[in-house]
């Protein structure tokens, strides 16, 4: 058990180091002259070579790959993300502000997703193949096929433009968060419904259930003690995937609804070619993602005693 956990931890560290190198290499090899782009963004005027060279030295673009990598990764280990190439301000405070917009939205969306999908899946599997089941499957299939940006636009069209119930742009009041959370929550609910539904159905088909039933266990106790834990395993597995879906959706949804979160931070950094900002977002995203997947692997080992010898 302990050696398993250490193995998982080691693997996560290897993966994180890999992501750091890949990220840095990607930005290092990005086409175009970042020094020129930064100078343009700063001074917004016709520039001489001198000014561009000065910017190049200032932001350390004249170094070799590995020394530049070292300069970047060293401070990063103590959570110093450096300074914005465009504004010159430290990266972390601005990044933190955007996280405070993104994180609650992600949590609420996940909560909506779970609140919709669990009851729906339980109702649907009461009579597999019945009308309600087919309805749930149809809605869930439709939900996974709708791109987040289109669902967001449709919700704006209905609730902001036609009905004028809710604001569409900005993040000033809690009401501004309703439509973004709904957009992401419904998308999450759709894919979760499919997974929970098939998890329950698979749990019902387990060969040990008839044996337990013959011992006189009531069907309520069966659901609670034998089917629910079994159906929970695939759900825990896909929470990692759901997180990916949420992060992808967040980028788009924040852009559509004009929320100053991590997604907006990332897209505007890409457009401005503000590499320290892009690097910071990518590193934070990878860190969150790898940590959550590590936790899932650990939880997985705790709730499913069969796992451990199997190669995950």
């Amino acid at each position, binding site marked *: 058990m302990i050696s398993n956990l250490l193995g998982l931890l080691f693997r996560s560290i290897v993966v994180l180091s*890999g992501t750091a190198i890949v990220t840095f290499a990607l*930005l290092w090899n990005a086409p175009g002259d970042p020094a020129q782009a930064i100078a343009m963004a700063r001074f917004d005027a016709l520039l001489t070579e001198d000014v561009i060279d000065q910017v190049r030295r200032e932001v350390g673009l004249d170094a070799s790959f590995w020394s530049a990598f070292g300069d970047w990764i060293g401070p990063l280990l103590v959570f110093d993300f450096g300074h914005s190439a465009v504004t010159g301000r430290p990266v972390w405070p601005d990044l933190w502000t955007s996280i405070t917009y993104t994180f609650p939205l992600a949590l609420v969306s996940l909560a909506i997703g779970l609140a919709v999908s669990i009851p729906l899946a339980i109702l649907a599997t009461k009579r597999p193949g019945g009308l309600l089941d087919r309805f749930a499957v149809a809605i869930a*299939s439709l939900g996974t096929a709708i791109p987040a*940006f289109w669902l967001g636009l449709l919700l704006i069209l209905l609730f902001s433009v036609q009905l004028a119930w809710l604001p569409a742009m900005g993040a000033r009041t809690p009401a501004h968060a309703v439509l973004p959370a709904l957009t992401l929550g419904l998308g999450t609910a759709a894919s979760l419904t499919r997974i929970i539904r098939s998890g329950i159905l698979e749990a019902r088909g387990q060969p040990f259930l008839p044996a337990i039933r013959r011992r006189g266990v009531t069907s309520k106790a069966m659901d609670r003690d034998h089917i629910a834990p079994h159906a929970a395993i695939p759900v825990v597995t896909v929470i990692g995937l759901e997180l990916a879906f949420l992060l*992808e959706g967040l980028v788009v949804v924040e*852009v559509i609804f004009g929320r100053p979160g991590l997604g907006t931070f990332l897209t505007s950094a890409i457009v401005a070619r503000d590499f320290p900002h892009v690097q910071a977002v*990518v590193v934070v995203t990878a860190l969150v*993602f790898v940590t959550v997947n590590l936790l899932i692997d650990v939880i997985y080992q705790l709730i499913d005693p069969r796992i451990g010898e199997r190669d995950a």
Partner: protein
Amino acid sequence: MRSVLILSGVIVFFIMLGPALAPYDPSAIDIPNRLSPPSGAHVLGTDAFGRDILSRLLHGARWSLGLAFLISLIGLVIGTFIGLAAALGGKLADWVVMRTTDTFLAFPELVAAVVIAGLMGAGTWSLIFALSVTGWMRYARVARGTGLSLQSRGYVVQARLARLPFWYIARWHYLPSLLPSLTVVWTGAFARAILGISTLGFLGFGVQPPMPEWGSMLLDARIHMRSTPLQMIWPGLAVVLSVLAINLAGDALRDAVANDDKQA
């Protein structure tokens, strides 16, 4: 398998013949008739430049579906090769390859694609590169998993003892067993590529205007949401219907493959 064949037929039909069915030139500008509602002359109406939306949707199939097809096939080739290399290459190669795969899986695919495409400069080639680089990992995992399970089969052991080359073993002993599960992964990758292309197009990092890609059509339509909301419906509907059809075919295929496994 039949549903996948029918679906491939329909999609190839739209990619090949979509432009021929279009009633107008998709980039013909007609300012007097801009933002017109659906009518006899323009079945789905016109956009802000007076371009016929139906024609743009039909031409757009070549971008949205055609590129997704290409991208999902590139991922299939790269991923299968990498996965088989891991399965056939011994312990060290396996470890290196799988940790590389984990590294690429450490970002949400679409976020990585946005970063890559955005930094390379928006355009069709960046889009193809970004979505291919972020789209091969699932194939690699499946190819490696199945590859490892085949390793102890008699005919594979024989082939390796006979020192047959990597390519030969991969082609004749592994690929036939891999094909059903890889096809299932492929349908998922195809659907995700369609969503990825339209999302990047919508964010402005994908296929550039005036090309009639569905996502960038939505970006244009969004500005005129108040005056012509219908304009925003059609491209989105095209994306949803394509993805839905592919996902349903993929589900049917997965069930068929699972049944075959049970019988075998």
